[in-house]
């Protein structure tokens, strides 16, 4: 590894309460993916550690309850009813209007008032990089950037230039860059010329899920849960399902999530001859998601590209034996999941079959997964993030 893991040897740290200006675009309930969840959990834990978090978002609120987190929202400055796109909505769907909102967001951040006491600006992904760079410069405080995924990954190598440029601006300007996995950190170094000494890794986390009482309930679902995009590999899931299905007639396959591949996947299931064995749930609520995890015998994350893959960690926390592609960042923090090459349909099919066939295997693996997934919680990740803030502050003080 060419860069240090976070939280290692921070030495003497000042215990000063920090004021953090955090720009993350999405915040629950206005979220379309892991970014919003991450912002919510990390800001909540930062506040719980005694720091002051001011969250900068375009959405109007009201937001999910997080005691101690303050919100400043762009929507006050927008005409009422202006549509605000979600973080994972492909930019081209919105066209120039999309970038208009982004530009307004950045202008607003750059000129934000009543923030002079802040200690650090923390931007998540590309949305607010231009504004945050200006704000950090104006206030003379460090900029920390978290990268959850890159434009190269989201587009399978066909980046949209305006977004790519905003990513590069953030990575160039940031005093410290937080990647959600080592593999993503490596990518930032090779594809974005991020200086290795500035890159840190802070993994995602999940909340513990109370174990279900063993009510003898049948776990008979093999589950895919995620956005339906090519980068997530849902077609691999269906191809593996088609191999597994004949030998396990009592098993159902579930695809939960929405996205551009939806119709293609329905057609694929039909052409694979498993149209009657696959249930497409579309976008699911929190409650439906929990219900699916309760019924799941196996969780599969077959992503071609996956900077982290928090859905797999959530499934593991619920005690579901999990199979992830080797290209998933989550594989760096867990040992009790099967890891498979993303293209290896037969290996996915074999792993699914093994978990369905051998009850001792799925029980041991599920128990261990539950334990392992929640070993380091969000509080730990927030502490590591604070270590990165303090490092950035120290590094800036030394440069003066």
């Amino acid at each position, binding site marked *: 590894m060419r860069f240090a893991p976070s939280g290692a040897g921070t030495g003497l740290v000042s215990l000063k309460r920090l004021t953090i200006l955090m720009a993350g675009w999405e915040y629950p309930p206005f979220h379309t993916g892991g970014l919003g969840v991450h912002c919510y959990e990390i800001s909540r834990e930062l506040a719980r550690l005694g720091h002051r978090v001011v969250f900068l978002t375009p959405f109007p609120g009201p937001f999910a309850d997080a005691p101690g987190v303050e919100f400043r929202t762009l929507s006050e400055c927008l005409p009422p009813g202006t549509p605000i796109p979600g973080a994972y909505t492909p930019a081209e769907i919105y066209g120039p209007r999309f970038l208009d909102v982004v530009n307004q967001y950045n202008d607003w951040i750059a000129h934000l008032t009543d923030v002079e006491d802040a200690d650090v600006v923390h931007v998540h992904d590309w949305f607010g990089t231009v504004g945050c760079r200006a704000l950090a410069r104006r206030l003379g405080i460090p900029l920390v950037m978290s990268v959850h995924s890159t434009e190269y990954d989201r587009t399978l190598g066909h980046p949209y230039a305006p977004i790519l440029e905003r990513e590069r601006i953030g990575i160039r300007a940031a005093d410290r860059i937080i990647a959600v996995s080592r593999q993503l950190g490596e990518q930032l170094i090779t594809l974005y010329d991020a200086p290795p000494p500035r890159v840190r890794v802070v993994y995602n986390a999940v909340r513990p899920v109370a174990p279900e009482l063993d009510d003898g309930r049948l776990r008979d679902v093999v589950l895919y849960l995620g956005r339906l995009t090519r980068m997530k590999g849902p077609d691999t899931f269906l191809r593996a399902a088609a191999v597994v299905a004949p030998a396990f007639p009592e098993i159902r396959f579930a695809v939960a999530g929405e996205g551009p591949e939806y119709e293609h996947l329905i057609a694929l299931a039909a052409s694979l001859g498993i149209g009657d064995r696959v249930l497409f749930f579309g976008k699911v609520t929190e409650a439906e998601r929990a219900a699916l995890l309760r019924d799941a015998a196996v969780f599969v994350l077959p992503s071609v590209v996956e900077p982290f893959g928090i859905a797999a960690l959530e499934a593991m926390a619920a005690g579901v034996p999990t199979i992830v592609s080797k290209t998933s960042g989550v594989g760096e923090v867990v040992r009790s999941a099967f890891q498979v090459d993303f293209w290896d349909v037969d290996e996915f099919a*074999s792993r699914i*079959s*093994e*978990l369905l*066939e051998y009850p*001792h*295997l799925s029980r041991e693996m599920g128990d*261990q997964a539950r334990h392992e997934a929640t070993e380091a919680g969000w509080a730990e990740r927030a502490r590591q993030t604070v270590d990165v803030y303090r490092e950035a502050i120290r590094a800036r003080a030394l440069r003066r």
Partner: protein
Amino acid sequence: MKIVFYLHLHQPWRLARFRYLDLGTGKPYFDIDRNLDIFRRIAANCYRPTLDRLEVMLRQDPRFRVSFSITGTFLEQAALAAPDVIERIQRLVETGRVALLSETYYHSLAFLLPPPELEEEVALHQQRMEDLFHVRPHVLRMTELVYDDDLARFAAREGFSGMLAEGWEGPLRGRSPNHVYSSVARGVSVVLRNYRLSDDVGFRFSARGWTEYPLTAEKYALWLSRSPGDVVGLFLDFETFGEHHPASTGILEFLSALPSAVAREPNLEWATVEDAVRVPAAGPFVVPEPMSWADENRDLGAWLGNDMQRSAFDAAKKAGTFARSSHDPEILSDWRKLLTSDHFYYMYVSGKGADADVHRYFSSYSNPYDAYANYMNALNDLRRRSLAKARASH
């Protein structure tokens, strides 16, 4: 004080990835090339250099003695990957100062299987010792140094005069491990492993944080000579020398320096396991439950501690009935290779601590679930083959 210096040589036949989808396809279970590659690597790091040093030690010091246990699977791999390793061992045995031990041919937990598996495996191994080395061992050691009263009785029935066991506090009840004890079976003595002195070399030799680091042959010989008792058992994996501790740690020089360091202590002498079992017993040694040399608990937990391991072993036991009734030597030999204890060891779910690190070091998989799934697939396939064979012959 007699020093019983005994080294264990073993390699398992590791499985290839045998997928669920591979069932019934005729794909072989064992990855021959990978196993032989591993063997060649260890032969270069450990077997050759260490055997060569032992040969020099035997030549230079007529009092030096050493004992080996060599599994059948080790010899199979050596014959294919590095036959010169067998020739080196033959040269050592010819000196008459190297004793060989009996054990299960497949390094298995055959003592937990219904008869006649244990008898047959020990007989197979005896035969191999006679064929290759022209000796008939009189001392028995069980896989992973497992020992209990039933095994002592088995040893007596099979005509052995001694067995090896871990010098563990429980059955010693305050007595020193540095004696020969009598088992519950008439005519079978028990020679014990002094685990502290053995682990000083086996585990701690290269640990820089150890207060006794670096361990020299002179210091070690002094510890041996000051140890109370009349027989001290230094039982180690052969791979201690050059593999677990790489040559760069100085472990091979330590080994070479041992005979002259021992010679300077007047109360020390070398003995083989066969010399040791003739020493009069200091008292009875009673072990009702199986005891091994592994982990902090010294029980069978390393192989049969969790549900996966127990279910895999049960499945292997059941598959044995099918394998035997197939009367197909290839099926029987595949089944027996699947009995090798290492497969169950790989399924151990490690927590934290010293045992977990040891388990990870010795595992051939990235996690216990890979190990279990793979093993169960192979066993399922074996059962299918056995049934098909049985049906065909009716």
